[in-house]
């Protein structure tokens, strides 16, 4: 009897402590919980993703097996596409004439190198991160956070986190006028108790399987091979300037630089123009801006600079137009 009362008292105390901690958790602590939740929790959910006016539905399954993340992302609309992650290795299952495969032929191949070591560090200096009430997403109680940029070189973000686990339930990115550019939101989500078999793809005949691997950080001498660099990047991005991927084919070398401020990222691609034409244009797809500029390099050869990222067009244009060549 006494033991039972003690157990009940302890349980009440633990629940109370968790509730107090939950109530007092700061916005940054919630972000940290979110970050860990993605990597450590087992979950299986269906979500919608909207980019601009395009809307699509996907399923994500995430299971940690022997300390290694296994993730399966399945496209539920249109052509069948599936991405399987096992640790640092990604296997893509696509149809033979998938547009992604066709597009990859349009630019030289690249390696994927570890770029970001501290994803959310120093974010407080760049964004105002605040708790912004609560809500309900996919039938779950949610904590709402607003992440407002402190300058005009990045977009704002609104996120809803699962109150019980910190898992991201909804994500929205806004432009500087408050218009929504992209959104993802779970419609159904199961956390915990996910069988290991759920991350194993079904084998189907005729599909194309390709594998990509995230390699360790580029060696210092590889960084020296990069000749073109932006003279200016927005504040906070320079801390995360990281790596280079070198094209496999020497003829079409592409310098690639990736920058992140922890919450958003952009890439800079520089390649020699195949002819004397000048190409200067920009596009936007949801939150992603693409800006292309032609610059004249050494020996009078035209170079094509392409900046791609979730940054305002004005920012991307400024980066692309202010490149400098290092010998």
């Amino acid at each position, binding site marked *: 009897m006494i033991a039972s009362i003690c157990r009940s008292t302890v349980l009440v105390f633990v629940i109370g402590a968790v509730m107090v901690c939950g109530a007092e958790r700061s916005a940054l602590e919630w972000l940290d919980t979110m970050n860990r939740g*993605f990597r450590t929790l087992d979950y299986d959910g269906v979500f919608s993703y909207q980019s601009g006016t395009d809307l699509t539905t996907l399923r994500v399954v995430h299971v940690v097996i022997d300390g290694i993340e296994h993730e399966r992302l399945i496209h539920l609309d249109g052509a069948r596409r599936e991405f399987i992650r096992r640790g640092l290795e990604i296997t893509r299952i696509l149809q033979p004439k998938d547009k*992604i495969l066709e597009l990859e032929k*349009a630019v030289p191949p690249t390696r*994927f190198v570890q770029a970001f070591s501290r994803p959310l560090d120093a974010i407080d200096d760049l964004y105002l991160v605040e708790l912004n009430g609560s809500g309900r997403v996919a039938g779950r109680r949610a904590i709402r956070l607003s992440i407002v940029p402190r300058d005009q070189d990045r977009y704002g973000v609104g996120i809803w986190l699962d109150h019980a686990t910190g898992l991201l339930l909804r994500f929205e990115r806004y432009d500087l006028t408050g218009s929504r550019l992209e959104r993802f939101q779970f419609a159904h989500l199961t956390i915990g108790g996910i069988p290991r078999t759920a991350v194993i793809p079904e084998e189907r005949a005729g599909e194309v399987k390709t594998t990509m691997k995230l390699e360790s950080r580029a060696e210092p001498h590889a960084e020296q091979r990069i000749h073109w660099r932006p003279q200016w990047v927005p504040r906070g991005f320079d801390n995360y300037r990281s790596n280079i991927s070198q094209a496999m084919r020497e003829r079409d070398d592409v310098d690639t630089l990736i920058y992140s*401020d922890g919450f958003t990222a952009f890439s800079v691609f520089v390649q020699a123009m195949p002819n004397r*034409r000048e190409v200067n244009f920009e596009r936007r797809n949801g939150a*992603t801006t*693409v800006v292309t500029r032609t610059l004249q390099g050494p020996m009078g050869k035209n170079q094509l600079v392409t900046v791609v990222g979730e940054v305002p067009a004005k920012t991307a244009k400024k980066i692309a137009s202010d490149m400098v060549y290092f010998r």
Partner: protein
Amino acid sequence: MLDDEAEEFEIRRVIGEIARNSDLKSTWSRYHVISSILKREGLSNLEELDIGEASSGDNGSSSGPKILADRTLNRPWLLSRGTLLASLAVAIAALAIIITINDEGTTQVELADTLVVPDPIVTDDRIPAESDILRAEAYLIRHAQHVSMNRSAAPIPFVKVIAHETER
């Protein structure tokens, strides 16, 4: 060929002949643009109308430029202002042909041969070619993959890649 009436063997023979003759090649390009406009295919990129490439292609298709036209129509977000302007310019040129045909009763071929069709690539560098747009789209995918591989700044990795426009 422009009426889609020719047999495949005949098309291949004519394409091969045109590819070897630059005058024939430019004339064919003008005809094709006009034909596309009349068929409302919206093709506007003269540089991509490389019949030499079409004749040497290994995709088994009998008409390379037609594939390019399909690709243009399947890419709504990339429908550029420049492309629209170029289409409009060519459409006006095509309209001029129709009016002339009606007024004077001459054949389309004779008029088209003397018509100077605007070339958006040569005359205005700000207008991207089909290959430029493809390249930009490819880099967009590359960027999304880089960010996803590093699991940073992406709410769910690979969402942008896997959700990239597909046949629906």
